[in-house]
């Protein structure tokens, strides 16, 4: 069974890679299977882990049923009205619920984690000292870099004042910092993409052809 699986996987992998040469029906077929299998996979996991395990076992068959779970199920079923154009407006109710809940949760969470706590950790002693009280110059320089980077970066994203004079200079330093940041994320993205390919190559050469042990 495992061998059959590995062969299936290998054939699918090569078939998708054929797109690199040219778009072709074999690739299109794989794309169709991809859509079908992913949708089916999600359907099963959400069915058993959420609808069955959480709702059905919790609210219907349990010894002490938790009735309020029905509220969620009712909202969920209302979502399915989307499939029927005449009553599809009802689906806005669960959608409104999700949007509202997300907005409520995000509002304070984002602010605390990504604004308050980030500002707090930017406000530090620039001069870092070692255990013996000696100044750690490298660390101090790093702290200064963070400080300048955060402040000028924020200046760049300030839209109520034209970028002129000292403020403009600050904003310019800010965009340089942002560019270094984007460079780092460029490098890391390339790193991730290469890893994806290495994973596939490892499957083809190792699991399938057995060239890597």
């Amino acid at each position, binding site marked *: 069974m495992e061998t059959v699986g590995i062969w299936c996987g290998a054939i699918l992998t090569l078939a*998708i890679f054929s797109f690199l040469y040219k778009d072709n029906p074999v690739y299109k*077929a794989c794309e169709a299977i*991809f859509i079908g299998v992913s949708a089916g996979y999600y359907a099963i996991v959400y069915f*058993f882990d959420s609808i069955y395990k959480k*709702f059905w076992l919790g609210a219907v068959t349990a010894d002490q049923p938790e009735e309020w779970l029905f509220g969620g199920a009712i909202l969920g079923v209302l979502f399915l009205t989307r499939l029927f154009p005449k009553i599809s407006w009802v689906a806005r109710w669960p959608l409104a619920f999700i949007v*509202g809940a997300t907005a409520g949760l995000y*509002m304070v969470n984002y602010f605390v984690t*990504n604004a308050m706590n*980030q500002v707090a950790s930017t406000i530090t002693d620039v001069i870092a000292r070692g255990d013996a009280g000696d100044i750690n110059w490298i660390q101090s320089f790093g702290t200064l870099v963070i400080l300048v980077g955060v402040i000028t970066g924020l200046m760049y994203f300030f839209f109520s004042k034209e970028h002129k004079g000292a403020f403009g200079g600050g904003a310019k330093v800010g965009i340089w910092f942002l560019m270094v940041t984007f460079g780092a994320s460029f490098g890391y993205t*390339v790193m991730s993409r290469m890893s994806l390919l290495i994973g596939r190559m490892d499957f083809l050469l190792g699991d399938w052809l057995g060239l890597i042990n």
Partner: protein
Amino acid sequence: MRREVPILITSIAGLVFAVSYFIPHNPFGKAESIFGDWVSIVQAFAIWLGVLNLLKVTLEKIFRKSEGWPFSYLIIISLVGTILVGFYDGFTGIYAIPQTSYSDPGTHFDWVYKYFYSALTSTMFSMLAFFVGSASYRAFRARNVQATLLLISGFLVMGGRVPLLDRISALFTDSPIFSNLANWIMNYPNAAGQRAILIGIALGIMSSSLRVILGIERSHIGGGN
């Protein structure tokens, strides 16, 4: 009815989660838990909505014989096939003694996951490695000061984060200069830039969340002002 009810639902749900952050006491603490459960269940139904919608759209495509309709058969076969395998494994597992899970190692569903789902998704995304390569040859240019700065920093990180540039510096010195430099870029200038972006995003999210809760932003319920 069609407009007001959704806006009311949005505001109530939003307020419960925002307020319960500050007021842990019941009824807010309790309401937060109940609403949290609801979100979880509603999302599961939303996924099923997506799946059923896919089925509907694909069937329509077959009936209308629109472009590429033969591939639609493949979508339906693989979708229904995966679901049937999952239901078979799931329900036999529930009635087995001791109970097993649809996703346990060795089930048919796990086999589909390992050799079909994994192979397909991983390969689809791995093509991006090739596309990054060709774009780096044909498009990524140091066309101005900013792009130059970006490419230099990208280069140092790309070459420093793996022992690549260090192989060159190793000819002169033993200390991993480029690895340290890449690490420094990540921990200081990158952290600073990311933090500036994060603070901006946090305020942006807060603003849009506020508009949603206050009911002045209504695009999500399908209508302008």
